[in-house]
């Protein structure tokens, strides 16, 4: 099966008054149709930048320096503005953080959905648009009557499901959800995630879930990618990540998670994430790494592909160091 999404060496920088910050230092990964990828990392690790770069919504002073984003064979970074406008929502959909608070408060839900469709297909007939909207609302388990309501009449969970509905209106191949449930209760969160699962099956899309709740990742995704200081430190399947993480940062992250059998034992990761303006030399994690070697201070580790669809960015696994 050919991957539906291929990100190749994506690089993004921000040019600020204080210098150039490397937000994304070359990300490479791929996704098959129907697969779910979880993108985790601390704040400032580059996860939202990755999402914005994939839909080409990086605004100055940020810039995509290099790289390709191939969705269904089409390289999004090479498209013109106009073509990209068409590609957004129809090929790749992005549901940003806090989307539910960005619904237009003065127009009905239905007209917001209609606007989204019209922007891609001016000539579509009213009935075909209405049908699309109704189907989208049904997929997220909302009654068609919701189209006549205003945003403030809906609860948090319902608003988030509306945002998902808007995201799937044009049956995109890739759906990116950035912290879709951070403001929702545990039970509503479960409902919304189950909705995303169902919807993904219906339209055969791949899903990227961005967040920092490892528990949510464990319950929902197939693959997990851990980011740190703009780099993908480890990409593994979800069972590999939670039972046998290999990158020192991923290991520390997993062992700091609270579990039912380790009450009262707190294990944080000492130190702070580096500023993107002043990244450490070599591997960005080496100041906090319990297994740092001399080479980690000088050389950026290569990305090594291991059997079982794993990729890891660490000198511990590069051939040079293997004795």
């Amino acid at each position: 099966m050919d991957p539906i999404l291929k990100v190749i060496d994506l690089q993004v920088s921000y040019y600020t008054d204080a210098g150039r910050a490397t937000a994304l230092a070359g990300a490479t990964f791929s996704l098959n149709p129907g697969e779910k990828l979880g993108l985790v990392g601390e704040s400032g690790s580059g996860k939202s930048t990755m999402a914005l770069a994939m839909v080409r919504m990086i605004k100055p002073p940020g810039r995509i320096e290099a790289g390709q984003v191939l969705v269904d064979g089409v390289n999004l970074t090479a498209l013109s503005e106009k073509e990209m406008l068409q590609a957004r929502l129809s090929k790749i959909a992005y549901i940003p953080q806090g989307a539910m608070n960005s619904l237009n408060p003065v127009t009905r839900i239905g007209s917001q959905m209609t606007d989204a469709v019209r922007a891609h297909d001016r000539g579509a007939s009213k009935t075909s648009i209405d049908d699309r909207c109704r189907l989208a609302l049904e997929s997220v388990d909302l009654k068609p009557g919701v189209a006549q309501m205003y945003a403030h009449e809906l609860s948090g969970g319902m608003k988030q499901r509306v945002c998902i509905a808007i995201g799937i209106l044009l049956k995109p191949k890739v759906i990116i959800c950035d912290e879709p449930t951070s403001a929702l209760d545990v039970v509503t969160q479960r409902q919304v995630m189950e909705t995303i699962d169902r919807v993904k099956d219906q339209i055969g899309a791949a899903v990227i879930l961005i967040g920092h709740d490892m528990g949510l990742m464990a319950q929902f995704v197939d693959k997990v990618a851990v980011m740190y200081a703009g780099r993908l430190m480890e990409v593994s399947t979800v069972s590999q990540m939670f039972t046998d993480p290999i990158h020192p940062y991923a290991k520390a992250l997993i062992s700091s998670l609270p579990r039912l059998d380790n009450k009262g034992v707190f294990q944080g990761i000492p130190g702070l994430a580096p500023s993107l303006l002043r990244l450490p030399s070599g591997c960005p994690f080496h100041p906090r790494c319990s297994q740092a070697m001399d080479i980690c201070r000088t050389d950026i580790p290569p990305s090594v592909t291991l059997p079982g669809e794993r990729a890891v960015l660490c000198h511990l696994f590069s051939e040079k160091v293997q004795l």
Partner: protein
Amino acid sequence: MTHLLELKNVSKVYSRGLLSKIATTALADISLTLESDKPTIMTVAGESGSGKTTLAMLLLGFITPTTGQIFYKGEDISQLRGAERMTYRREVQAVFQDPFAVFNPFYTVDHLLTVPINRFKLAKSKKEARGIMTDTLEAVGLHPDDVLGKFPHQLSGGQRQRINVARALVLRPKLLVADEPVSMVDASLRASILDTLRGLQRDYGVSIIYITHDLTTAYHIAKSIIVLYRGNVMEVGDVDTIIKDPQHPYTRLLIDSIPWPDLSRRWGETEIKAKESDISDHGTGCKFLARCPFAMDPCQNPPPLFRLSEYHAASCYQYEEQPGLPADQLSSVLPV
């Protein structure tokens, strides 16, 4: 022996509308006591709309109860004046959810600490004040030189939240209300901030009321737990027992929906019977009736608490064989 804190049949009802008053019960009749000689950490858990924030505001004296009274060291807090009020204000402190919003953007972070020191005259000179600030910052795990003199936006979320805890600690409170103190902090830093809070109870004898919707953190820090749903107590008792083996259908649903970072524990074993948004009937029976898979006839009347063991009680007719627990004796089922 007067209790440190006593809530006697406290409730809070909001009514809207000019002609036809629509009443929303934020918190229904709740009674609670906390002792001063046994500092403990108690969790009040619930989703949004459960009444937990209302409870925090009532305890801090920012809103007044519709019925019932709140006593601090035997005195009704709404009647306190002058020096006694200042004592109450000093000894009952809070840490809030948003680490950034508590800072006045005009000042450096020092301002957050100097204000209470000045207001409560904790230091006789600037040097002494600075000493208190450095000591307290170190007690919460910060290097004073790293944070003093800086503006809030120059520090990380974790550092800001620790300064918030320091602000509360400076006043040497007896009771600390922590309203979602780590939910807006990076997951990797939560553990250490919770550890700091636990240290307050252990080393400074502070009783903590930890309010949250995140049962995983509650499990790790608290001893007792009260589960609220739409203003009513659903289940109460020892935190280990309730989280490992919940008896109330709502608590079961809650625990079941927690995404544990553990692949062997899949969420969603209980089905979600009805979505919260579809409920329009706010009737007079058990608050959980519309979503409860075990709904029975008696549930049309609000169920009282039934005692299931020494430190466990649930408000559900499934347990009506068990001895009833009068609402004002709620604290007897809380371990300390």
